[in-house]
């Protein structure tokens, strides 16, 4: 191991140092420094992103560094940049929120950076040990973030539930890892893949290990039946945190999911596919139907994010090259549209947890046509109506299922996405077709940063819907790293 191997690792090192610095800066700046701190945090994310572009890209093909712990490939770069963008947007969205809340911003921003660091490791880990550690870094940061508003009953409760279930899932995950290790004698992804390609036996110990690891991953992406934490954690968490955990960690979890199941475990596809099929179908059905009767917007979006995890899982079930890149594209699209939707939830949260009920949106189109139009775009996109990005994402994922011969899965998903329109449009109905006769209509948060971030999300959502080719191109360049096609 030579020192030069550390060069591609520089972005991560920088981010860790930045997080630590932010912690110290937070103490000295105190509660008024929310905006400065989040600018600092976003700045360090930007520097880290530049570093990734400068030194983290795979020159001369994908390879591993630092004792085979990390991959340097375009797949990793794709997901690293994606999760960092998501974190950056959340940081800027949350600045005003923290300012209003009086909870200290320093730790908050540092935790988001540390979680991002964990996600970067998840995106590039080449060994089950490094993947596990990255996953736990992300998870622990999330537990703390969800419970960050510790004097809110809901926040604390959400954190407690998330923590207990998260720890259980990580227990299942490590048990699975131990079985894989027992069967193959290695924790290195490359060696695992090589071993599976050569022997290709239906070894029960091995396959059980794979499936238990799969359970751990299903938990992280919030798929049925490991979704149970989602609604409560989403509802309880401070809204910027909800926005955060609904996108970044989910994208990172899918990165790891793809890395493991379409990378290392791909030769055993025939073995684990049935489990993922059932989980995907159940997730799509459950998420959409349970969302129908939700009155709390955050909770509704939680179920919606369960459903979206189900759509993305379909690409993994397909197990093809197209399945792989369609999930990559889907995660990008989902990140922006979901962040945008949560941005509006933040915007309406002027009084305590007001702006969380569907009825709080009544008459919004009349009072704030621009806001309503933006929300409409995100709802359309989440429901998968063209020409928004959400349609593209679904189209790709469903096509991958049809191509792989899983037509019924695609049919289920299409029917359920038709159902999903109902709950997304409950908000639209409130905004456009109701009068909002409340004595005191909920005012909007005036925060230019928030507006700007929502604007970015609107732009990306529309741009990808109208012209998705560049994103698909990038994703396709990333997919070769996994050696599928």
């Amino acid at each position, binding site marked *: 191991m030579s020192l030069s191997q550390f060069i591609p690792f520089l972005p991560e090192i920088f981010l860790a140092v930045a997080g630590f610095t932010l912690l110290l800066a937070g103490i000295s700046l105190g509660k008024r420094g929310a905006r400065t701190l989040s600018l600092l945090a976003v700045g360090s994310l930007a520097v880290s992103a530049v570093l990734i572009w400068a030194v983290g890209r795979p020159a001369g093909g994908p390879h591993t560094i630092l004792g085979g712990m990390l991959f340097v490939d375009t797949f990793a770069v794709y997901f690293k940049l994606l999760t960092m963008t998501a974190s950056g947007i959340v940081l800027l969205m949350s600045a005003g929120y923290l300012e209003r809340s009086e909870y200290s911003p320093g730790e908050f921003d540092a935790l988001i950076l540390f979680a991002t660091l964990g996600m970067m490791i998840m995106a590039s880990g080449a060994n089950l040990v490094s993947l596990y550690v990255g996953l736990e870094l992300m998870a622990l940061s999330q537990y703390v973030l969800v419970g960050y508003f510790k004097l809110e009953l809901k926040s604390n409760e959400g954190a*407690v*539930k998330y923590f*207990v*279930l998260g720890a*259980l*899932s990580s227990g*299942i995950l490590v048990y699975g890892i131990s079985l894989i290790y027992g069967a193959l004698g290695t924790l290195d992804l490359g060696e695992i893949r090589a071993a599976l390609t050569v022997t290709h036996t239906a070894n029960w110990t091995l*396959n*059980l290990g794979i*499936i238990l690891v799969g359970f751990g991953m299903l*938990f992280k992406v919030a798929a*049925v*039946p*490991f979704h*149970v*934490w989602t609604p*409560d954690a989403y509802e309880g968490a401070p809204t910027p945190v909800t926005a955060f955990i609904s996108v970044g960690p989910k994208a990172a979890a899918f990165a790891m999911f793809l890395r493991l199941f379409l990378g290392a475990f791909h030769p055993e596809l025939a073995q*684990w596919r*049935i*489990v993922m099929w*059932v*989980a995907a179908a159940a997730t799509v059905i459950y998420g959409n*139907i*349970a*969302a*129908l*009767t939700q009155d709390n917007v955050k909770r509704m979006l939680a179920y919606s994010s369960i459903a979206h995890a189900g759509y993305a899982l379909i690409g993994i079930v397909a197990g093809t*090259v*197209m399945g792989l*890149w369609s999930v990559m594209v889907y995660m990008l699209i989902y990140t922006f549209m979901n962040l945008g939707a949560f941005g509006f939830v933040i915007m309406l949260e002027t009084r305590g947890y007001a702006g969380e009920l569907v009825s709080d949106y009544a008459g919004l189109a009349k009072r704030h*046509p*621009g806001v309503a*139009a933006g929300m409409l775009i995100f709802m359309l996109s989440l429901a998968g*109506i*063209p*020409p928004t990005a959400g349609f*593209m994402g679904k189209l*790709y994922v*469903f*096509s991958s299922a*049809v*191509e792989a011969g899983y037509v019924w899965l695609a*049919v289920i998903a*299409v029917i359920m*996405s*038709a159902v999903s*329109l*109902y709950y997304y*449009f409950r908000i639209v*109905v409130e905004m*456009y*077709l*109701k*009068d909002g006769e409340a004595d005191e209509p909920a005012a909007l948060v005036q925060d230019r940063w928030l507006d700007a971030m929502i604007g970015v999300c609107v732009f990306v959502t529309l741009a990808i819907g*109208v*012209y*998705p*080719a560049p994103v*698909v191109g990038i994703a*396709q360049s990333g997919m070769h790293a996994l050696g599928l096609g």
Partner: protein
Amino acid sequence: MKFYNLIWLIPLFPLAGAAINGLISNRMGLKKSFTHTVALIGSGLAWLWGWTAIIQWMADLGTHHTVIVTLYQWISGGTLKIFGGKLAQATVSASFQLDSASAVMVGFVTFVGFLIHIYSIGYMHDEEDRPYARYFSYLNLFMFSMLILVLGANLPVMFVGWEGVGLCSYLLIGFYFEKNWCASAGMKAFITNRIGDFGFILGIFLTFMVFGSTEFVKIFPVAAAHPQQYASWATIIGLLLFVGAMGKSAQIPLYVWLPDAMAGPTPVSALIHAATMVTAGVYMVVRCNVLFRIGPVAMLVVAIVGGVTAFYAATIGMAQNDIKKVLAYSTVSQLGYMFLGAGVGAFVAAIFHVVTHAFFKALLFLGSGSVIHACSGNQDMRKMGGLRKVMPTTYWTFMAATLAISGIFPFAGFFSKDEILGKAFAAGKSNLNGFGWVYYILWFLGIAAAFITAFYMFRLVYMTFHGEFRGTEEEKHHLHESPWTMRFPLQVLGVLSIIGGLIGIPKLMSGHAKWNLIERFLDPVILPIGVGAGHAEAAVEVTRHAVSPGLEWLLLALSLSIAIAGILVARSFYYGERAFEKPRRFTERHPLLYKVVLNKYYVDEIYQATVINGVVKLARILWEFDARVIDGIVNGVRHVTVGTSFVSAIFDLKIIDGLVNLVATIYDRASHYFRRLQVGFAEGYAMVMVLGAAALLAIYIIF
């Protein structure tokens, strides 16, 4: 400059208008004159550009040449394995297509759209600045979406427009959102459409998997060249696409949203829910005529749904008292005619009827808007009457449209409707695809619907324009003719309703096939089917010669006399000194006939004994007796008992509503049970996870 190479600009003009009005005028509350100028320029440029492009295209290239303008590659997806193990490039480009089918649609959509923009200026002048801007921005956005739908060169682009018009329709239905029922009507429209859309999406997927492309110019020639190879797939694709069309074009059983959609402003009803959007389904079926022709079952289903809808909706129309509701059911019925036409292989006639219907139905709606405007917003015909003297322009233009829809020679509707009925009869006579007797029944339903149409339309005219005014004195005082912005579109459309049919004079009358302009024009769209088509295609060919000229004249005379009979019955019932007397006396003198045909109680009893009790029992057995279902049914009973509808009562709107509610209830229940999994405390969640994990493991081990 070749305008036809820049057809993608046509939809962009209204989009720009929508953007300016929606983002600037609405936000800043700019003056109305600015708003409608922008909107008029947006739609007007689309009209001018569209027509210029079409004329130039015809002159330069001829109608047999298809112009395809590709903007860029929209969806790119690498190489995919499709059915049959072949590989195909999964690419969809953002491309637009100008051929005779889209030319016809662009031609009348932009034109009627522009007229309705003018009309809206007068109709909406009471609105405040901001809603006014919002209204026009939605209207322009609708034009944009509709043009994308029409011009799209492949199914996905068409689908963009398809969803877009649905959204705009939804927004415009709910425009008066102060009224709560408008909101629910908008929701209903969107959801019902969405049910159809899932068929459309699956159809797109399947098309790609079968043909390896979704571009019209690529799939249709292939399908037409190998009819036997693709016959079964074409049937499935056709049926899936038709599910989409049923939603968008309000066919049984997805028609429920259209009558409710009348909650929107009247110009919107005219433009979207009569002239343009609802005909999108017909356009799509005609566009994909190759698939339907090589898949006879799909075609038969189209014909059956169309024919039954035509008759069924017409019967409901007889009993409505709300002027816009009559027109709404009439639209559903006329759309049924169009599908009947497509289903019997008369694709040209279907499009012909789309065009003439756009003229006279838009006119009818605009006329009714004018009436409603005069009656201070009242829509109940029982409170109207005698308006002929006050608003002559409205009356005479309305009369022209009424004659057109009733199918009186030589008004526009006569030609198109007669051609559809003639083709339906021919299909029966030539035993098309071996389903001859079905086509005979459908032809009979069509004839019956023609009678009813004439009846209810003249009932409407007599109740509205003749006799004495039956509203309050105050309202009577307020009666006035509409401003010129509203009258002008009426006059233009009135002229078109009279002469519009001349573009499709049948060979029978002129003696020359070349006088049937629309058939010649649309000929390139109807691709010839290759050899080996089997009896299906042969049968379509046979229908052309199945009916001798003499029989054709007879049919013509029959439909004309049927229409006149309908008018006469309406006249004797609702016109003159003893208006409204006759229905009552008729009833008293012929109690038996009354019982058979008109007695709502008699039908009600059958209906009560069979349908309702059955459904109630079913509901009891299958579902946890939910209050909503019963509500729907109880509403249905009440409606039937109190209402004046007769035959239609069997499938009354409210029952369909009840069934729709039933579906909703199932989802609601499921949602409720699913939510119960979310018990609220961590150990319970852990239990769900562990049990779920055990179940998944068991599935794995078993399989």
